[in-house]
């Protein structure tokens, strides 16, 4: 296959082999003898490879309306003027079809929104950059830049002349490698499109950025992206979402099994907040399917009224008896499997289960292993009752600058923990 003067834009590179999609879109597709058969309407790629190959061309024939498909292997040569087929290939046209793992560049990628996993945000595709290697046309970059827009408008040359003349400056390319791009399916039947290689890249985005991205998307793409996340990332992302309406719709749209796994993974107080916003029937169903420890925590938390300390506390805390030694406490700490929200303080209870004092992690690290915790602990404790108003708790945090505050019942038994993070979230929401 011969490739002629495909591209003139990137100086210093092997300039013959790159081509922009906008430069060949709509070009003439002709038979081996030069007879025009139609215009190039689209390229179909098969997902899966790092830089996916163009599998076939979609051609709008000269006569007739139906778009036809032609395998790329029947292409003899391709340049920015025309595409020439192999001899006899014109008999091989067939009606265009797309499989579940195939996408059409113009129909489903160009002008659409995609997730740029490197920049952790949503971008719009202005143009698509292709490369020709070993007779294959492969997708390498997408163009997010102003140059892409100008090129498609046909203003690029004049714009360059103008900016050169005015400022001796040329606008920069903004090409992002395809491996960082997560395309978003544009209609419902494609929602099960196996997310391509870069789907793994989604997990490298920080959950708060993921939450921002999800909030910016429309409902269909929201759930597609959300489903592509593993349970842990999904849980963290859900916690970061500000809009409760989006939170609840994502969790109700997920299958019950998956939804309850995600709830298990979330911090119990966050999971409780979310569950409290769901309709009764759905909530009961989800809680029943949750695993025992988190189910119990959530059920306990749901009892507390909204706006009280109990409703925002976490049940994940670490507490040991005062008769334990530092060494035993450390062993106990190691055995704790649930992800603790706050490890700053270790609480110590007496034989009756009443909270007696507090140590810091620093104590455990620097003290001898044999020392009894009851001799180390600070007994001047500030606690709040579960029925206390959040505003009061906030006041305590302001005054004492703690990282966490223990929540107790009327008998003085530790019920949970409110962390500075919980309070900050409450404050920010107001």
């Amino acid at each position, binding site marked *: 296959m011969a490739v002629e003067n495909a591209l003139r834009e990137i100086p210093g590179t092997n300039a013959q082999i790159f081509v922009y999609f906008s430069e060949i879109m709509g070009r003439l597709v002709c038979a081996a003898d030069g007879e025009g058969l139609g215009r190039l309407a689209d390229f179909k790629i098969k997902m899966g490879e790092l830089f996916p190959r163009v599998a076939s061309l979609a051609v709008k024939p000269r006569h007739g309306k139906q778009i036809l498909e032609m395998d790329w292997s029947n292409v003899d040569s391709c340049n920015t003027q025309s595409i020439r087929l192999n001899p006899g290939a014109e008999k091989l046209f067939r009606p265009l079809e797309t499989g579940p793992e195939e996408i059409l560049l113009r129909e489903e990628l160009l*002008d659409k929104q995609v997730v740029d996993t490197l920049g952790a945000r949503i971008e719009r595709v202005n143009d698509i950059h292709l490369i020709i290697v070993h007779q294959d046309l492969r997708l390498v970059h997408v163009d997010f830049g102003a140059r892409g827009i100008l090129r*498609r*408008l046909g203003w690029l040359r004049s714009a360059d002349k103008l900016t050169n003349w005015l400022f001796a400056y040329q606008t920069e390319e903004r090409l992002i490698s395809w491996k960082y791009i997560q395309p978003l399916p*544009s209609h419902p039947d494609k929602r099960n499109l196996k997310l391509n290689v870069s789907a793994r890249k989604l997990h490298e985005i920080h959950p708060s950025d993921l939450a921002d991205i999800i909030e910016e998307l429309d409902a269909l793409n929201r759930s597609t992206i959300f489903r592509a996340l593993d349970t842990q990332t999904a849980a963290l992302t859900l916690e970061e979402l500000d809009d409760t309406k989006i939170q609840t*719709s994502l969790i109700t749209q997920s299958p019950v099994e998956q939804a309850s796994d995600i709830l298990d993974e979330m911090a119990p107080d966050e999971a409780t907040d979310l569950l409290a916003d769901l309709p009764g029937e759905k909530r009961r169903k989800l809680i029943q399917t949750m695993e025992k420890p988190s189910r119990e925590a959530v059920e306990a938390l749901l009892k507390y009224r909204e706006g009280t300390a109990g409703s925002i506390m976490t049940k994940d805390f670490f507490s040991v008896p005062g008769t334990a030694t530092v060494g035993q406490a450390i062993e106990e700490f190691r055995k704790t499997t649930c992800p603790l929200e706050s490890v700053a303080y270790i609480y110590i209870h007496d034989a009756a289960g009443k909270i007696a004092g507090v140590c810091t992690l620093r104590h455990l690290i620097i003290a001898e292993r044999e020392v009894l915790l009851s001799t180390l602990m600070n007994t001047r404790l500030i606690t709040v009752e579960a029925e206390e108003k959040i505003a009061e708790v906030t006041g305590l945090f302001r005054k004492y600058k703690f990282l966490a505050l223990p929540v107790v019942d009327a008998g003085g038994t530790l019920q949970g923990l409110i962390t500075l993070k919980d309070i900050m979230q409450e404050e920010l929401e107001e």
Partner: protein
Amino acid sequence: MMKRLLAQPRLRGLLLFLSVAGPGIITSNVDNDAGGIATYSMAGAHFGTTLLWTLIPIMVALIIVQEMSSRMGVVTGKGLSDLIRERFGVKITVYLMFALVLTNFGNVIAEFAGVASSLEIFHVSKYVSVPLAAVVVWLLVVKGTYRSVEKVFLSACIFYVTYIVAGFLAKPDWAAVGGDIISPSFKMSSESLGMIIGLVGTTIAPWMQFYLQAAIVEKNVSVKEYRMSRLDVIIGSVVVTVVAGFIVLTCAATLFKAGIRVETAADAAQALRPLAGRYCAALFAFGLLNASLFAASILPLSTAFVVCEAMGWENGVDKKFSEAPQFYGLYTMLILLGAGIVLLPRIPLFPVMYISQVLNGMVLPLLLVFMIRLINNKKLMGGHVNGPIYNSISWATVVVLGGLSIVYIGSLLKI
């Protein structure tokens, strides 16, 4: 307590409505902006009640068009410019955005002209009022205090009730008014053609469709709640038309009768004399100022938002300037230039407001073509595409309005 209340179905329905309502009603109140008040006043003052009948087909078209915008917002979860870009590609989008920015720019000028002319009643020079208003509006939005001020603007819209009261107090000849509405008449002249296009353009402004759809998307209204959203839009549209009708009627019963031509805010204010006596000027100035500032805070912002969404540029007032330079640039430029043009010496303020609405009316059919094509796209809308009645009314609007615009331009060029 709340839970028990919610158990009652009627109350639950009302609460659901309130949670979804807003975009339609806010949009309609913004719709009665400086350009709107000017156009309706002039229609009444210069044509009496002879053009009153046009408001009925305009209302039907308004409901249909706004319903389409909100339906697209609910079903696709995307903004209108977003959909246009994805469906029609970058080329068409860029040219359409140019047209939209130009028209909206006309409207921004109209809002600042409204500020200038309303405060002229209090003898405040426009060289003071307009720059001040520009700074206030810019800060309101950029500093994020707009949301809290929105309620103030919205409640001040109660001002429009004064037209309804004044309309009754002016004791119009109700039989003649009824006759004018029932048997539409139309005298072919370049002036009345322009006025009809202006009436359509100010009531169904192109920018409002973008604004409404964006507001619906932002509210995350689900398809299930859509019936409530539709109710919101219908209520809003009817309110707009009733207010517009009474402005026309009041001006017809007072100004038209007295043979006053509306050239300034003081002329238009005379319509409220039956109600407010010698305070009519102050009352009118207050209403016009509120309407102008309300729209001036939304319009440039909405324009910048729509353009950035279409081009894929970062947008939103929660972003820093360095993150969204195009957004802030466009927003600031619209305000700066809009206010600047009003400061030109001897610029006729009321005609400027009116002309911007005629421009709206001429761009509307173009936008409608895109909207109709989008909403009939099965891939996009699934089972929520237009039915035959919707399609025929919306296409009829395009054809009639397009035809009127062509004839109007022809009559201006004296072909």
